[in-house]
């Protein structure tokens, strides 16, 4: 607890106030910016989700017209994926990677500043389209033509902001790879890296390989609309299904971008609170890598119903099922880590345990969706909505929350209130299930996704889901309150905040000094 942030700030002649944040090239400052920005976007996207759930509380239209409803579903997804989950992971990477590998900062600090500051502009532009006369994008986050080509004036703005977001992610990924490959402390070989570093390294490669493909796809949409090309319109010899192939070639790796860092977080937290080393470190690394590789050959499982040739359907069914193997290995390894451990259940551990159970439920529904003939029934129903919310909310989002609780004392030197943390956990977990579990039922019973109104037999479960969604939203206000309380305290946290925590970051004082490791530590 020796170092003190204010003292260090003077030493480095930081500009103060707003300029400090705008010009900062420090990995911790930028990490914080990313995390705060992501929190803000969670609430913006969450508000949209609540508009959707309010409208779906009962059949009949009560609040919004269908066109606006479609803008809400489209925007909600774009904001949550690109504005909330991805920036949160990048924020965690910024804070943790240098500390975990024994480096003073990220490899490319100036680039780091840009990749963050692109985001507020991109999202301002994206959100501003909602106020256009013709409204924001309403063709779903998947932007399928020809529907997306019909949209109003918002389209070029949406595409431009997606380009910016893509550029930001690519720059961030380059930085992550450059840092991990070149700035590790002496003695830290690749196979000695903390597992979170590994998962981020692989995620960064996924980003670099997939974001440019999205850029290509949306550029083709743009030229189809404004420059007379016809990549995706049958009239000019194009094919709307081609867009889906290109989109999902990006899109499936993207869903793993949203989960691999979460695997890394859970693989860090479970051993810490089991007081036992991660079981099967090597196989965790190989499993992550094989998930990443497989993710490039399964894309068409999102489009089983477009009418592919039989051989194609069989191929994509098999590859998709295959992904369940490395995913299963991960789950088994986590359970084996807990086995014969000495567990305690602080808030980060609770979130990590809930992650394992609920993510696995999402994996089970994923396995069901992989079975092509059954997917003909599930596809584009609420069953799919239930699936991806199970892997994304109690999956990715729980991991992010767990990470914040786990590393907060290291970042701020202050410990959160454990009781409130537990209350937050139980409320969040209960409401997340009330929200998303019934969606399996209505989906199987035949309710399509992306509809503003539904037949009366779906009412009950929709009501339950809406109640859950509002409860979930409210629970997150408690999270903000907990963060606020924590930050208001004096610095009291120990350097090693958790008995079982392992890793270089815990050898640093809490709060961690402005430049993490000025002299690289030795790793034996």
């Amino acid at each position: 607890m020796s170092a003190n942030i204010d003292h260090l700030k003077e030493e480095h002649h930081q500009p103060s106030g707003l300029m400090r944040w705008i010009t900062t090239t420090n990995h911790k400052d930028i990490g914080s910016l990313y995390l705060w920005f992501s929190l803000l976007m969670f609430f913006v996207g969450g508000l949209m989700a609540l508009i959707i759930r309010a409208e779906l509380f009962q059949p009949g239209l009560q609040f919004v017209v269908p066109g606006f409803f479609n803008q809400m579903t489209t925007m909600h997804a774009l904001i949550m994926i690109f504005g909330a989950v991805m920036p949160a992971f990048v924020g965690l990477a910024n804070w943790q990677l240098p500390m975990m590998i024994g480096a003073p900062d990220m490899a490319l600090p100036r680039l780091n500043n840009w990749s963050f500051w692109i985001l507020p502009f991109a999202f301002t532009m994206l959100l501003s389209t909602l106020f256009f006369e013709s409204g924001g994008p309403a063709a779903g986050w998947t932007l399928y033509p020809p529907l997306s080509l019909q949209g109003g004036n918002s389209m070029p703005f949406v595409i431009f902001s997606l380009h910016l977001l893509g550029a930001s992610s690519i720059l961030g990924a380059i930085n992550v790879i450059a840092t991990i490959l070149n700035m590790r402390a002496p003695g830290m070989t690749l196979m000695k890296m903390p597992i979170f570093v590994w998962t981020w390294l692989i995620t960064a490669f996924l980003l670099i390989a997939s974001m440019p493909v999205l850029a290509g796809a949306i550029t083709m949409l743009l030229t189809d609309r404004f420059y007379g090309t016809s990549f995706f319109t049958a009239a000019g010899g194009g094919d709307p299904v081609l867009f889906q192939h290109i989109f999902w070639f990006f899109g499936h790796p993207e869903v793993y971008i949203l989960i691999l860092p979460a695997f890394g977080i859970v693989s860090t937290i479970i051993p810490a609170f089991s007081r036992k080393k991660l079981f099967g470190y090597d196989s965790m690394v190989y499993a992550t890598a094989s998930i990443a590789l497989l993710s490039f050959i399964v894309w068409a499982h999102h489009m089983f119903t477009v009418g592919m040739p039989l051989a194609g359907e069989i191929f994509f069914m098999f590859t998709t099922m295959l992904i369940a193997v490395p995913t299963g290995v991960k789950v088994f390894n986590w359970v084996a880590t807990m086995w014969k451990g000495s567990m305690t259940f602080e808030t980060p551990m609770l979130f990590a345990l809930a992650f394992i159970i609920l993510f696995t439920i999402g994996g089970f529904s994923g396995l069901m969706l992989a079975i092509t003939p059954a997917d003909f029934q599930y596809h584009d129903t609420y069953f799919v909505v239930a699936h991806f919310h199970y892997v994304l909310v109690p999956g990715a989002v729980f991991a992010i929350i767990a990470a914040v609780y786990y590393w907060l004392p290291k970042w701020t030197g202050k410990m959160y209130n454990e009781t409130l943390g537990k209350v937050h956990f139980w409320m969040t977990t209960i409401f997340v299930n009330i929200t998303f579990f019934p969606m399996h039922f209505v989906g199987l019973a035949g309710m399509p996704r992306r509809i503003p109104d539904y037949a009366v037999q779906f009412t009950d479960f929709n009501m339950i889901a809406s109640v859950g969604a509002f409860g979930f939203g409210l629970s997150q206000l408690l999270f903000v309150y907990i963060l606020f309380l924590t930050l208001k305290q004096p610095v009291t946290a120990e350097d090693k905040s958790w008995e079982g925590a392992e890793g270089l970051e815990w050898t640093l004082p809490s709060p961690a000094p402005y430049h993490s490791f000025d002299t690289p530590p030795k790793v034996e």
Partner: protein
Amino acid sequence: MKRLSVFLVTMLASLTTMADWEVNMPRGVTPTANAAYDLHMLIFYITVVIGIVVFGVMFYSIFHHRKSKGAKPASFHESTTVEIIWTVIPFVILVGMAIPATKTLIMMEDTRNSEITLKVTGYQWMWKYDYVEDDVAFFSKLDSDSNEARQLGSKKDVNKVDNYLLNVDNEVVLPTDTKIRILLTASDVIHAWWVPELTGKKDAIPGYVNELWIDIKKPGVYRGQCTELCGKDHGFMPIVVRAVPKQEYTKWVSLNQKNRVADKSK
């Protein structure tokens, strides 16, 4: 988890005034829909068993290997044998699932020897049906009762509308015990035609033609919806199929050939 279930049960109890608690896929009335249902149940039960085993071990560990019970951490952290076993076992289970799935898929894709052909065209926001061999064609859109009740601020109570949002002005009539080929295409954007009890959905793509087959084994009325986002009224273009015995169908065709509705009259 216990608290969760208690909460759920009370929630459910307070809502029992309402009727439908359908939690599963409906059983179908065609060989293809039934095959999908059987596969769905098979995979579901397999995942339930895996879930019980994995979560069982996990909860055992959570209850017995806690610090507060004086558990001392063991030091093992790898075992090649165990890791190979739990890579191979899931793989074998997957192969067991893939075999029936592939068989079903092959059966579903075989549209040969269809007796009649129904062409379905998606429009924003209605369907057009052409009976290819019989010179019958008509548009089918949301019925006027539902349409009135669905408007924002409508005074009409949706609970009092018959088959709210699942009713149309013109039903599709099809014969039972007949292999029917359904051709799917669209006029403007991508739609998807889905009647869960008849078979899985397939996309209707402008400029291209997809196909499905069904063989309805039970007379009745089957309802479905468009399942590919197709613009603002995507939620309001239902599908209603009335399946009748063959003779009745023949009669229906001859009655309707005369009232042929041309393309323009929509």
